[in-house]
Each structure stands twice: as structure tokens, then as C-alpha cells.
């Protein structure tokens, strides 16, 4: 935790320009071309993207995951300190558990292990209609399938008519269509809602 706080403190000062640790030539231009100079990897046309994997986590040994892909392929995915982990929110490596589904993006190493730069755990993107609204959950329907969408206080946000996200969910209406980004609770028809996009 101390390390996290130190790190955040350092980054806070760097972002606000309050740090003395500035490398020579750090003041760059605002032009996007500067950024595009960075190396970018592209997959071969028509081939599976080597830098991407998805599937169900079937085992975890320290930070090495065995993942069974939905196409039957087996992936080995290495999590590291720089891997970003999304599980309903940006979170830490220990939240990645056996039984979770994931999408991972990273760099395929020569030994076949995907060194993950980002993983999204149990993430789901559904178009739904809102069947009913309760204090802790929304009853949703996705192409005839019932889905329970739990509201996480302080976390679940709503975007109305494309305006910036707010925490106020009181403008959601029964019978309306919506799009939901959330995290599955594995093995159930339940999700925790991160963001719900609706009209009002």
C-alpha cells in the first residue's frame, strides 16, 4: 500500500508538473505525430490477432493464467505489475480469479505466453430493455433472456442521451431500451452494472 501511495504521489506531482525529475528533452510538442512515432504492432490480415486472447480462466499459478478460449484454443497469459485489470472498475491483479472470463491484450512472447498489458475480466456489453427497477437491481431483458443488473452504490453510472456520465440513476425508465457495460457474475444471469447508457 505504501508503495502504491508513493507511486501515486510521484505520478501526481509529475502530471501537475511539480516534480524536479524531468529528463532532458521531455518538453515535447502537442502534435499527435509525436505520439504516432511510437511502435505499433498490427496483426496479419485474415489471421487471429496474436496479441489478443479471450476465454475462461481454468487455472492460475501466481500471475500466470491458463485460459480456455471459446474457440477451443488454450492460452497462457502472464499478468505483470504494469497490466491494467478491469473488473467492474480498474482494479488489482488479485481480483483475477479462476472461473472468470476475460479478454486480454498484450504482446505474444516467443515462448507462446501472452504478456498482458490489459485484461478485462467478466466484461459484458449488452443491449437490453428495462423491465423493472428496484432499489438494488434492474430487471433487464436481452433478446428474450432475463438478466439481473445490480446497481453498485458509488460506482454504477448512467449516461443519458450521450451526455457525461452521472451517478444519478433516477432518470432510468421502465420499458426503455438501454446499453449496459458491466461485469458478469460467473455462472449466473446476473451482472454488476458499471455504466448504463439510456435516453430520458
Amino acid at each position, binding site marked *: 500500500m505504501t508503495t502504491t501511495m508513493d507511486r501515486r504521489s510521484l505520478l501526481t506531482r509529475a502530471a*501537475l508538473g511539480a516534480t524536479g525529475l524531468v529528463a532532458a528533452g521531455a518538453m515535447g510538442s502537442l502534435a499527435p505525430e509525436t*505520439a504516432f512515432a511510437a511502435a505499433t504492432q498490427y496483426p496479419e490480415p485474415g489471421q487471429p490477432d496474436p496479441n489478443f486472447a479471450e476465454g475462461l480462466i481454468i487455472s492460475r499459478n501466481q500471475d500466470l493464467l491458463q485460459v480456455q478460449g471459446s474457440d477451443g484454443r488454450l492460452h497462457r497469459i502472464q499478468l505483470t505489475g*504494469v497490466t*491494467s485489470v478491469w473488473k467492474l472498475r480498474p482494479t488489482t491483479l488479485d481480483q483475477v480469479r479462476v472461473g472468470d472470463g476475460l479478454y486480454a491484450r498484450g504482446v505474444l512472447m516467443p515462448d507462446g505466453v501472452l504478456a498482458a498489458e*490489459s485484461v478485462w475480466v467478466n466484461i459484458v456489453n449488452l443491449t437490453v430493455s428495462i423491465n423493472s427497477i428496484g432499489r438494488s437491481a434492474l430487471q433487464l431483458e436481452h433478446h428474450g433472456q432475463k438478466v439481473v443488473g445490480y446497481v453498485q452504490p458509488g460506482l454504477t*453510472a448512467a449516461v443519458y442521451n450521450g451526455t457525461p456520465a*452521472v*451517478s444519478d440513476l433516477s432518470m432510468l425508465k421502465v420499458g426503455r431500451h438501454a446499453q449496459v457495460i458491466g461485469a458478469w457474475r460467473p455462472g449466473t444471469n446476473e451482472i454488476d452494472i458499471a455504466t448504463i447508457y439510456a435516453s430520458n
Partner: protein
Amino acid sequence: MFAHQMAAAQPLLIGLLLLWSSYGKVAGRDSAEQARRTALPRLVGETSAVPAYRAVGAIEAVIALALLLPPAWTVEAVAAVALATGFTGYLIYAKIVVPEASCGCIGASARPVGRRAIGRALLLLATAVAATTAGNGWWSASSVAVAAVLVLEAALFVMLSAELDRYWLLPLRRLRVGIAHPLAGTATDGVPLAATQRRLLLSPAYRAVNGLLRSDIHDYWDDEDWRFVSYTARYDGRPATAVFAVPHHDTTPESVRVAVVDETSGQTLYRPTVLATAG
């Protein structure tokens, strides 16, 4: 006496229900599509599903008209019992063998077979069995009490019909939510991360370092009037962290700042000049 009248009145309800049900199957614009969503392709084969679906609709219409029009024969009610038994058996089969299949019962719906659909088929079966004991036609049963029970039965059918929820259940729920919204207390002063991320994505700072970013959001935290969001990045082949500072109170895109920090030394490797001198 009342029981006899009730039994005699059942064919009216069953007849109207079957007519409505058959209309969607025989005359519905998307009946072929609807047939393919049911368990019929599994039961009778892909090619026979649509003709079978329409044939069921035609049988329903024939039985419905026989029940509704004089004379009143017991055999009509027996046919309705046979049909209702078939429906119940089919729905239980569909729920077990093809759980994702839609009911195909009344109107177009992609909703899979549920307990309500089976309950409705059982109710139809019960009314059809009651109708077999009738001695007269439904037109001879004219009492307010019989009419009231028929209305209740019809209401029960409606409540068991998921296809009709939008006409009564959703408006009722809308009314309840309109009176007291269950999520009325969710508004807080906190800024959702999704809002910060949107501002960040639209900022010149993000455009300046977009090509350096290698991950999704790695960490985020609030400090006084700012929210900080960090991403894993690479700069000149070196592992780095890009950290954005998004002010809570200034919503202009230019107010977002960014720095790219070396992962090991902690040195700032890159900070767009305009941003560094702003504010």
C-alpha cells in the same frame, strides 16, 4: 346450475383465445420467422417447421370456430382438450430440450418458454376439460355472475401471457417508478470514472500521447481538485506510465494535463509543452 352455466360458457373463452392465437400463426407477417424460433425445427425438422406451425394455427382456428358457432357438441370441447394437452406437452418438451426456443404461442415474441406459458397452457386445459361437461351452448349461459367469472378467467390468461406485459405490467411498473423512483437517492457529488474518461479521451493531452499508451486505465485516484488516471505506456522503447490530471471544476478539454513518467527512474520523460505551462 351455476356450475353448468360456467361449463357452458367456457367455449366462448377458449374459442376467442384460440382465434387470437391462430391469427398470429396463419396470418402474422413474420409467422415463418416466428416458427423458426420455436422448438418445432428440432421436433419436426427444419423444412417442416413452418408448415407445421401454420397447420397448428389452422387447427386452432377450426376448433375455435366450432366452439364459438352453434351447434354445441361435446366433441368440440374434447378436441380443445386434446389441443391443450398437446400444447402443454409441447411446451414442457421445449423447455427441457430446447430451452432457448420461444413459445410461439400468441403473437411474435423471442422470449423463451417460461413457467407462465406452461401455466397458461394448463389453464387452457382446465377450461377445456370443464367445457366437456357442458350441456348447452355458451349463448345459453347469460348471468352476471358467469360473465364476471369469465372476465376473471380472461384476466388470468392475460396475466399469464408474457406477450401482453407491455400493455398492463410495464405501465403499472412505470406508474410505480413515477410515484417513487427506487433509485432516487443515487445522485452523489462524486464524479463517475466514465465521465472523467470521456473528458480525457476528448482532450488534446490524450491525443498527444495516444500512440504511447499500451493499456487500459491502470489506476485512478482523487487528490484535492484533481482526478488522476494512469495508463501503462512505452516511450522510446522504455516502459513508462502516462498519468493524466483531470480537474474536477474546469471542464475545458485544454485543462487536462499529462506526463509520461519512466517506470524505473521516476523521471518525467515527456510532457507536452502547452499543457505543462497551462494554469
